[in-house]
């Protein structure tokens, strides 16, 4: 291998590592306070659900296992951002807050399905519909209860 080729490879590797470090730090805030606490519009997306979506009823509302299953799903997929007790985490707002608890099941399902991509919440349509409804059941159970044990 010629020295020219070696230098070329080193530069390429350095560029690759540099390029990788940009996304690694992208969106990671320097402040220790969660950004959503100072954001007056953090729950604004709830008002954007179409009427048809808002009116949807939770088909698992009467399922006795839905809250427990939803709690498991929350631990697995949501607690990292929204906190273990849904009280809000470093990246995601509290789901015990009034705007969430007063939203219809259909609205919560719509948010889960579509995410809030520009604010960092991914779409969760990869979870089958019944699992998203189980999550809604769990979220709606939070207004009065402590977190159920799975």
């Amino acid at each position, binding site marked *: 291998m010629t020295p020219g080729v070696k230098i070329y490879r080193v530069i390429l590797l350095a560029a690759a590592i540099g390029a990788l470090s940009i996304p690694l*730090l992208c969106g990671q805030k320097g402040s220790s306070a969660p950004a959503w606490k100072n954001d007056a519009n953090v729950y604004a997306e709830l008002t954007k659900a179409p009427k048809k979506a808002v009116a949807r009823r939770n088909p698992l509302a009467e399922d006795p296992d839905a809250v427990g299953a939803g709690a498991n799903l929350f631990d697995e997929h949501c607690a990292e951002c929204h906190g273990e007790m849904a009280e809000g985490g470093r990246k995601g707002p509290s789901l015990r807050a009034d705007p969430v608890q007063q939203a219809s099941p259909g609205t919560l399902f719509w948010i889960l399905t579509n995410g809030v991509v520009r604010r960092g919440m991914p779409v969760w349509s990869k979870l089958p519909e019944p699992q998203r409804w189980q999550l809604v059941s769990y979220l709606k159970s939070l207004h009065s209860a402590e977190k159920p044990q799975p």
Partner: protein
Amino acid sequence: MAYSVILAVVAGSGSLAHAQESPYIVTYDHYLEEPGSLEVEYFSTFGTQREGNDFHAFWTEFEYGATAWWTTEIYFDGQTTFNDSTIFTGFRLENRFRLLQREHWINPVLYIEYEQTSGADKILKEVEGHDVESDYAVPNAIARKEHDHELESKLLLSKTFNGWNVAENTIATKNLTGGNPWEFGYAIGASRPLGLKASAHRCNLCRENFIAGIEMYGGLGDRYSFGLHDTSQYVAPVVAWNLPSDWTLRLSPGFGLNDDSHRFLLRWGVSREFSGFGEMVARVFRSREP
């Protein structure tokens, strides 16, 4: 060095996310990595080879969710050709961008990849152009002398309904070395979890932890000779097992559909997702600030 840093940070991570990964090995759906999460994956491909030696190709993949609309990855490829040698065959840098904010009837994602591989690369992560089985019969000592710098773009289209995911990828690749024409390929897949409702209790063997499906992929020729002639085509059942212990296992036996395809490919992979990885790295840098 870079590997050590990544592994050290990953080893220090106590925050693991339960994976809900698709079973596809070649096809991409429209779901990106969750922001701040790192997924470490290892995949193997065993391939039969007529008029040559069978091979075992493998790659390691680090997939990071930069934002909810941008996922970036780096791959390191290698292969063992039986009765020949084991060699490193190159790396790939990949980015996927979600084009629409919300879910729609069909969801597009733009995929852009740069790869620097040798002619001995056999991972068959995508099949394009006039890639045929006989290309892979060349001994490693000769094949590795060919250096490819490729720019690869894909339009990923995907939709999930009633538990089913259907995905279609259109591939356009340009080898930047020499005057090679644009080459084309495709991959399509369909999959569904075996159970749609989650169980109230955690379990390894619950039906919802298994996702099964099928994918089909192959070349579509190049700019000057578009079509299925002199291309390889494959069909492959796929299954993924998402374990509550944060691991995902995938298995896929693939079958060549014409005489220009490898007769049999056996692929398997294992992956683990580490959520909060980006935040952890940011914390490391913050702690050094005065």
